[in-house]
């Protein structure tokens, strides 16, 4: 199959992710947002290795025992979307390859799901929590203020004291 698969075909043809059939419209709304956000990585796209091009800088040398290079940067390209991920976070090529794929999954998630991608959902969830926290704090302050006012009104001259 040609590697130049148009973006739109790829979306409906070969990329799937667990739990969500691609062609069903996803109902919006708060409960779904929170539920999805709670489980990390569960709804990230599954990568198809056929669509990935991987490059590892090892020099033009023979490799294996004949080479000892410490460069272990991994470059991963997703051919249908053209997204490129570079990873040299660790000293292990193997781990860098795995991490590059994790980052690629996150990026593809944003591209495919847009508003409903994990990254965006998590952000929204965090903002929601922040908003609720602030509201709660303000409510508490308001209650305290009203209580103080009530106390002040009680202790004014003219009111009954026992």
């Amino acid at each position, binding site marked *: 199959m040609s590697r130049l698969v148009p973006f739109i075909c790829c979306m409906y043809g070969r990329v799937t992710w667990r739990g969500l059939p691609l062609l069903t419209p996803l109902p919006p709304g708060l409960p779904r947002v929170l539920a999805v956000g709670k489980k990390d990585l569960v709804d990230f796209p599954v990568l198809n290795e056929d669509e990935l091009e*991987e490059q*590892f800088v*090892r020099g033009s040398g*023979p*490799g*294996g*025992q*004949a*080479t*000892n*290079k*410490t*460069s*272990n940067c991994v470059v991963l390209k997703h051919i249908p979307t053209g997204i490129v991920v570079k990873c*040299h*976070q*660790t*000293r*292990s*090529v*193997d*781990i860098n*390859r795995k991490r590059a794929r994790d980052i690629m999954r996150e990026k593809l998630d944003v591209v495919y799901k847009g508003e409903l991608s994990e990254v965006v959902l998590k952000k929204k969830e965090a903002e929601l929590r922040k908003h609720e926290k602030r509201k709660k704090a303000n409510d508490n302050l308001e209650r305290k203020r009203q209580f103080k006012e009530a106390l002040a009104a009680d202790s004014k001259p003219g009111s009954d004291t026992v």
Partner: protein
Amino acid sequence: MWRTSLRAGCRGCRGFGPKGIWGSHAVRRCSAPAPAPAPAPALPAGRITARQAVDVWKRHFEERGVTEPDNSSHYIIAHLLGAKTIESLEHGKLTEFLSREKTEQMWQLCTRRLSRMPVQYVIEEWDFRDLTLKMRPPVFIPRPETEELVELMLTDLEMEPGAKVGADGQRTCLEVGCGSGAISLSLLNSMPQLKSIAVDQSQDAVDLTRENALRLGLQDRLQVYCIDVLKDAETVVSLCSPVSALVSNPPYLFSEDMTSLEPEIFRFEDHAALDGGKDGLKVIKQILTVAPQILTNHGRVYLEVDPRHPPLIRRWVEANVEEMHYVETRHDINGRPRFCILQKKKSNKDHRLDQD
């Protein structure tokens, strides 16, 4: 303190006493007289930042033709500042001033690198998959390709139940030529139900493997022996209870290719861990000859080899080791044929305990 380390260059075939650069057991063969060690830049009088130290040494490495000048200085400074990579350093750490002690250590370590000592020996550690291992010359430094060997073995071992040997139902694996212990320890770390035996002809390697096993808390599931499989195959066979898997990254370079090795390898790593003889197959052939006596039926051999080897090994095994079947060749991340998988055919004359 840092001045003494100027002696840490290659001095031909001499070690520096029992705890010298190469240890007491290494036998070195250098074809050219060792060059005089390059002078290091002067230790700065005032304070410098980590970033400045990196830049000074990167430039110096470049001027002296030291390969990977930026990676070298990056890994060394990261190690000194408690991180694995420069990217994982805390933000701002690089612009902080180094203490006097850290500056001297930076100078000491980088001076070692000036002598073309591999970074892994300079910082005395390196990572292999998710493990950090101690490194010490002349014990062979694990290569990234070998990480893939472990991956494909794990996939295989986890997929098929395979022959379970031993009263406790645990699976046993044998590694020939363990070096720093990378392969065995990585397998043990990923498979809690696995037991391993590792052998190496070098006492330095055996010591280092045991040390790494202890550091990782894996010593209870690993036995390490100093045995030369070329000279003493019978001991290997008798010591190892039937194993369901045999793995090796044996010396596989062609003898004629040894002299063109980069100084990092030629001057510092054990040549016996690299030189596989005229066709690079000396140790590989011995392993495959002995394998049927060690493996259970359907047990597998996993080898890392030179890219030219797979077809040669297939032909040789078909002609010379009737009990072994060549299963497949796998490629490494650079697309080179790198791994050979073979399997022991069921043998009617196998009297050892096996279930299949």
